[in-house]
């Protein structure tokens, strides 16, 4: 995984809610062209970061045994721009989880200010995709580790979150 749009988790409650932060920095290349002289983080990349927060939350619920993909963004509303120097806090809450996927409600805040809110639908890919590798084994656990989910995470019973024994997704 080399497409990180969050920097670390600050909360991770298995099967329920995760909170991650994203530091918007002028060192990030995309801001040089979006837009020249007026750097603004594209809303699509905010959605991507929120989807990573929610997607890992949904994936972890099944111990990364099912392949989770972002299927649909039914709603997304942006209230203000994210610019270099901002620290965005993404909060993703599982609204509904189903054998075929999940619905996640999420927000992005700049401090106390609501920057964006959205709903995301994730799908668990079916057996038709079993022969296709989306990620190398262990990639998602590695991502969780880098993002420090296991340092702050809690399992459903409130005990510290543990890495799954083996990741197959």
């Amino acid at each position, binding site marked *: 995984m080399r497409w990180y749009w969050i920097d670390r988790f600050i909360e991770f409650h298995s099967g329920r809610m995760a909170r991650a932060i994203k530091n918007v920095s002028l060192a990030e290349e995309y801001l040089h062209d979006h837009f020249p002289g007026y750097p603004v983080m594209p809303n699509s990349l905010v959605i991507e970061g929120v989807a990573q927060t929610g997607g890992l939350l949904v994936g972890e619920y099944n111990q990364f045994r099912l392949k989770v993909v972002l*299927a*649909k963004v*039914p709603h997304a509303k942006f209230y203000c721009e994210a610019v270099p120097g901002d620290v965005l806090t993404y909060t993703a809450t599982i*609204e*509904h989880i*189903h*054998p*075929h*996927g*999940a*619905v996640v409600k999420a927000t992005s805040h700049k401090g106390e200010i609501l920057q964006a809110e959205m709903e995301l*639908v994730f*799908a668990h890919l*079916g057996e038709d995709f079993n022969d296709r590798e989306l990620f190398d084994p262990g990639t998602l656990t590695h991502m969780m580790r880098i993002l420090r989910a296991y340092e702050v995470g809690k399992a459903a019973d409130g005990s510290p979150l543990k890495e799954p024994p083996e990741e197959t997704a």
Partner: protein
Amino acid sequence: MLTQEEIYQKVREVLVDALAVDEEEVKPEATLVGDLGAESIDFLDIVFKLEKTFNIKIPRGELFPEDILTNPEYVKDGKFTEAGLAELRKRMPFAELDQFARNPLVQDFANLLTVRDMCRFVELKLQQQEGQASA
């Protein structure tokens, strides 16, 4: 148990939310795909929202028994066979199939479901659930 009108209003809300359509467009006879522009991924969203709204469980293939499409006994030369239509009637008791059965092309199958069918589907699920609870 919810009344038919209550079910209709809630189904309507789900469809307005999932398909970003105006409430006036969601009429009982409107087809989900043709009239309301639903795409395959929207059905996933609709199923999740129906489950949450009505507190029901909808297993894969119940609303849309796709496995019938790949069974050569049920589908031949792009058309449902008599056995295929019988299977559809059995598996989709909530759907209005009479008109479709006159020329049962597989390509039209995806556009079969109407808002009314969805309401009937929910109604049957709720009845089933109530039956199980009192059994």
